[in-house]
C-alpha cells in the first residue's frame, strides 16, 4: 500500500494547494513547479489534492426526501404583517449602519457611566489609601483602646478620651436606632458624623477598630458628604436627617449615559429580533 509521504516542514503546502487549484500567478507558479520538481513529497501532495478535487466534484448528490413547495397555509402564516414587517426592516441590508451605531451608543453609554462613577470611586480609594497612614497612630493607641472599648461600652459618659467617647455611639447604633448623639463630642459637625459612620466602624469590631480608625471613618464620611452640610447649612439638626444626602438628583451625565446605553442595547435587540424573525 503506498503510504503518504510528508512534505518537508519548510515546504509551503498551501503553495502546493494553490498550484493544484491553478490559483497561482505566473511567477509563483514557476517557484511552485520548481518545488514540485525537486520534492517528490510535494509532487505527491499535488497529485493527491487533484485526486481529492476530482473525487469531491464527483460526489453524488443526495436525493431529496420531500417536496418543499409552500402551501397556502404556509404562505398565510409566513406573510409578514404588522410588527413583523416593522421589525423586518431592521434586518434590511440598507440599515446595516445600525450595527456600528448601536456599538457606538453602547460604548458612549458605558464610558459615561464610568465617568459618572469615577468621582465617587476616587475619594473612596483615597480614603482607603489614607487608612494605612493612620494605622501607626492606631497602632499606638491599639492596646489601650482595645481594653477601653468594652469599658466604654458599659459606661455612659466616656469622658476619659475623645476616642472612647466616639466609640459609644458606634455600639449604640448597632443596639438600637436611632442612636442618641453623644453630648460630649467636641464639634457639632463631628458629633453628627459618628452616627453616620457608626455602622462601618462597629462592623469592623471594637477591638479591631480603635478610635483612630473611627476618626478615619468619620473623615471618610466627612470627605464624601458632610462638607456641604457644614458649609451650606450650619444647622446640625438638618444635617443629621437621614435622607439629606439623597435629595440630590442623578447627574445629567448619568442620565445621558443611561439613555445612550438603553438606545444602543435596544438597537442591538431589534437587529437580533429582526434576524430571528427572518
Amino acid at each position: 500500500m503506498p503510504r503518504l509521504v510528508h512534505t518537508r516542514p519548510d515546504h509551503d503546502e498551501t503553495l502546493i494547494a494553490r498550484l493544484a487549484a491553478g490559483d497561482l500567478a505566473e511567477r509563483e507558479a514557476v517557484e511552485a513547479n520548481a518545488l514540485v520538481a525537486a520534492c517528490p513529497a510535494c509532487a505527491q501532495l499535488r497529485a493527491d489534492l487533484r485526486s481529492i478535487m476530482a473525487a469531491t466534484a464527483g460526489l453524488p448528490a443526495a436525493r431529496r426526501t420531500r417536496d418543499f413547495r409552500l402551501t397556502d397555509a404556509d404562505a398565510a402564516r409566513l406573510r409578514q404583517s404588522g410588527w413583523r414587517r416593522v421589525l423586518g426592516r431592521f434586518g434590511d441590508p440598507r440599515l446595516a449602519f445600525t450595527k456600528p451605531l448601536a456599538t457606538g451608543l453602547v460604548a458612549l453609554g458605558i464610558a459615561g457611566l464610568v465617568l459618572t462613577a469615577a468621582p465617587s470611586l476616587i475619594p473612596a480609594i483615597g480614603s482607603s489609601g489614607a487608612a494605612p497612614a493612620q494605622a501607626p497612630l492606631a497602632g499606638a493607641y491599639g492596646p489601650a483602646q482595645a481594653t477601653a472599648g468594652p469599658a466604654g461600652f458599659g459606661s455612659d459618659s466616656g469622658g476619659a478620651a475623645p476616642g472612647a467617647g466616639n466609640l459609644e455611639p458606634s455600639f449604640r447604633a448597632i443596639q438600637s436606632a436611632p442612636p442618641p448623639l453623644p453630648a460630649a463630642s467636641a464639634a457639632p459637625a463631628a458629633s453628627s458624623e459618628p452616627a453616620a459612620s457608626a455602622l462601618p466602624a462597629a462592623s469592623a469590631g471594637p477591638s479591631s477598630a480603635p478610635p483612630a480608625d473611627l476618626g478615619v471613618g468619620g473623615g471618610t464620611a466627612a470627605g464624601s458628604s458632610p462638607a456641604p452640610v457644614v458649609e451650606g447649612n450650619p444647622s446640625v439638626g438638618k444635617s443629621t436627617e437621614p435622607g439629606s444626602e439623597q435629595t440630590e438628583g442623578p447627574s445629567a451625565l448619568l442620565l445621558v449615559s443611561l439613555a445612550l446605553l438603553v438606545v444602543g442595547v435596544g438597537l442591538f435587540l431589534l437587529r437580533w429580533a429582526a434576524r430571528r424573525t427572518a
Partner: protein
Amino acid sequence: MGDLRTTATADDGPQRRDLILVERAQAGDLTAFNDLVLCYQDQLYGLVARMVPDPDQAADVVQEAFFSAYRNLGAFRGGSVKSWLSRIAINAAMDIQRARKRRPVQPYPELEDDSWQPPAGEEADPERQVLTGERVRVLTAALAAIGDDQRAAIVLFDIEGFDYAEIAEMAGVSLGTVKSRIHRGRLALRRGLVDRMELFRG
C-alpha cells in the same frame, strides 16, 4: 421597487426566468414562488445535505430556507436568485451545525445506514461499484470532519460550481478568505484521508 430583470443579462435565460418569478412572487403569486422552489429544491437539498449529515435535519433546513426566502422576498435586491437562495440555505445549515456542536448527536448517521447505496453508473461492475461506494463514504466522512467554513467553501466551489466571487458574496468574506478556506480545506481533507488515499490515486 425597480425592475429586477434589468439586473439580468439578455443571454442569461435561467436568471431572467428567476427574476420574473421573484417579481411575481413579490406581488403575492404563490405559484410563482413554488415554481422557484421546483427549480432549486434539488440543488439546495444537495447543498445542505453536504453541510448537515442527518437527512431529516437537512430537509428541515431546506424547508426553513424556503420559508425564510418567502418571508424575505421584499429584501431581494436583484442579482442571482440561485446565489440568494444558496446563501439563505447555507446560513440555515450553519445555524444547525452550530446548534449540533452545542448539543452533539450521532456524528454521521448515514454512514451507519446500510440502506444507502451509491448511484449505479451505466458501465459500473460490482467491484467498481463497491470501490466507488467506499470512496464516497470515506470522502463524505472526511468532509464532515473539517471545519464548517472550509466545508461550505469546498462544497460551494467543487460540488455546486460557484466561483470564488460568488462564494465570497454569499459568505460575506473576501475573495482571499474564500481561496484560503478552500485550499486549507483540501489540505485538511488530505490529512483526514491519510490512510485511505489509495482509493483516490490512479
